[in-house]
């Protein structure tokens, strides 16, 4: 396993795209969060969840993370590298596990940077948008339990998105199809849910959609109004990632490379 881990780490770090993707994921996440924090304005009648506002960047960050994870598998298939990998490490589940560990770890690191950056950006920008202590909004701080949970949870969210993407890519191999499936699952599922007229069906869809459920972790106020509780929501995403990894692992094991 150590060898497999070392091999995966070498493969990932020697591709320049990895660094680019990780950096752009962090930068775009912080940038989008900052823009939204700047655009939101205080209004007495419309209370805002400023933690969630600051962490909005995860909407774009997750797409970059998905590219990274999908490429970790699909790129090997497209250039035939996968056959070398499987000759070197014949126990195929170990290959996927090693990839999951390495990709998960680098995404955790980049995600932590991105989310911390978002919180700092929010802390600096939000008071200018009117979210001041005088209006009942203390500065964002990780010392606040719910904010810490939202921030740490968002980092975990990104890592789970990476694992989900990895599993999907292992199952379908083709990068284009894998990224289409992952982003469709993330972005389109909630749009469909929002457009469905039946409120009960809508709520159920939001409880099982990986993005809507997973991002419940970012809410810090009005938790009773959420379709699903924060940690339960992240659990739903973890279940999606687990099923995807299992499917991918099974496909890898049973299929010729």
């Amino acid at each position, binding site marked *: 396993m150590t060898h497999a881990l070392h091999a995966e780490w070498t493969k990932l770090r020697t591709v320049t795209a990895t660094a680019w993707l990780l950096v752009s994921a962090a930068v775009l996440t912080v940038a989008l969060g900052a823009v939204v924090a700047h655009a939101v*304005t205080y209004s007495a009648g419309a209370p*805002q969840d400023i933690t969630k506002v600051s962490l909005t960047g995860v909407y*774009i960050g997750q797409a970059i993370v998905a590219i990274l994870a999908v490429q970790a598998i699909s790129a090997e298939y497209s250039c035939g590298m996968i056959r070398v990998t499987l000759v070197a490490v014949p126990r195929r589940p170990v290959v996927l596990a090693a990839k999951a560990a390495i990709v998960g770890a680098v995404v955790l690191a980049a995600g932590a940077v991105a989310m911390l950056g978002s919180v700092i950006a929010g802390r600096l920008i939000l008071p200018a948008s009117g979210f001041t202590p005088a209006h009942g909004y203390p500065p964002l701080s990780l010392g606040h339990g719910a904010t810490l949970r939202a921030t740490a949870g968002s980092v975990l969210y990104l890592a789970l998105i990476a694992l989900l993407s990895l599993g999907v890519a292992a199952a379908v191999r083709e990068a284009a199809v894998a*990224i289409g499936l992952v982003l469709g699952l993330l*972005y389109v599922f909630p749009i469909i849910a929002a457009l*469905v007229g039946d*409120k009960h069906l809508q709520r159920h869809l*939001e409880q099982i959609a990986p993005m809507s459920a997973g991002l419940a972790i970012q809410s810090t106020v*009005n938790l009773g109004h959420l379709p699903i509780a924060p940690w339960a929501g992240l659990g739903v995403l973890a279940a999606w990632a687990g099923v995807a990894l299992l499917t991918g692992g099974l496909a890898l094991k049973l299929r010729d490379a």
Partner: protein
Amino acid sequence: MSAITREDFTRLVHAEWTKFRTVRGWVIGMVFAGVMIVLFAYLATFAHHDGGICIGPNPASATCQSFAHPEPALSPSGVPVTDTYYLLHRPLIGNGSVTARVGSLSGKAQTGGGGAGVSINDLVGAPAAVNQWAKAGLIVTTSTKPGAAYAAVMLTGGHGVRMQSNYTGDTAGPHVSALTPRWLRLTRSATTLTGYESANGASWTKVGSVKLAGLAATAQAGLFVTSPPSTDLSSPQYFGGEGGANQTATGASASFDHVTLQGRSSAGWKAQNVGANTELPTLSSVGYRPTSAGFTISGSGDIAPAVAAGYTDEQPLTGVFIGLIVLIVLATMFITAEYRRGLIRTTLSATPRRGRVLFAKASVIGAITFVAGAAACAVSIAIGNHILRTNGNYVYPSGTLTQLRVILGTGALLALVAVLSLAVGTVLRRSAAAITAVIALVILPYILATASALPTGPSDWLLRLTPAAGFAIEQTLPQYHQVSYLYDPTGGFYPLAPGVGLGVLGAYTLVLLLIARRMLLTRDA
């Protein structure tokens, strides 16, 4: 020479078409995209017998009512309307006029918050600022049935004196305060109705004049007051049941004095709460009482076009988003697969004029997508509307031309995004990066605009400046300046006109296609 060139291009298009149709996965993908669009037309509409409006944060304990959208009242021209107001009226036989001085308007709002669909019973109004579109004035109407032909001249809460007719007609008079009394007069001469206003009852100014074709010989002339629900325009919407536009019932009161009716009449004053049975949230504390000089009338409701009444043709098009993702993947692979397999070198050896290869590819993928997309949308709208109507829902009458625009426009939207994907794929050459870039350009702005914390202003700019502006082509509901409503994309309202929105997407596509051509020409394959 040009004949040879044209033949050359035809051959290229044929080659690209052959590439497309002989890859089984692509053909299956295209069919899959169409099937998804139609399938979701079914899923998005079938449950609507059980939909309705839920009040309360937690659906488990929420009260849900009105399981279907029933048919609203229709104006003489077939537009769905709200026609709920308190009326004090007398028959007016033939020509004549009605005159009154309208005292200051005062407002009431429903107490205790609440949401849309609040019952008209058991609500007591609390004193509040008068609604901007509260109306008090004079009306001549064919009958007291909701949807009847009418003309009215009125003092509004915040928009001065207006002359309105047949629900959609609206002419502005002087912008005077609702707090100072104003003289109003409405005269009928055959089918022409003319509204006048005056500050002192001596010197009169014409506000407007309309011809009402369907006005009965004996019309009802009288005094009316009504006040539409106030909409919370600031509430942000998230996925997950938070936010949403809350409508609060309001009421208005106005005093009328110096009331005179000129012309023949056959009966005395009669009071009626017209159209009380409405889906609109209204206050129940309405009525009138005589005063020493005239009457004080309280009303709640609106005389206006019904915004977002029933379902629209966009409802069955929910699946377009899924079809779009499939098409983005297909169109990107149409070029990136060539790079991956090295086929691009064969293609470019066969046709050294590279720009033309790109345009041939764009023509083929665009045309296939347009045909498949428009066909899927036509089927979706037909099936979806049929299901909605079968379940007793009202579907907004958008008209054949508008439907055709939505069907062909959505086909064009899909085709443009396909060509855009091809261009981005050519520039980036990697499918994963290209597909993500396109989705981030086209779908992410829509999500951020409709479902993030962004307030209405920045959300609208996202839907003006990004390729997501193209979704405006699906818009069928008209916006009315005289109805205050949360005109946001989730409700089917876009900041740009349909054609302009599609034009923005088209501009992005064209620019990216030109960049792609440049890259293809200058870069080694």
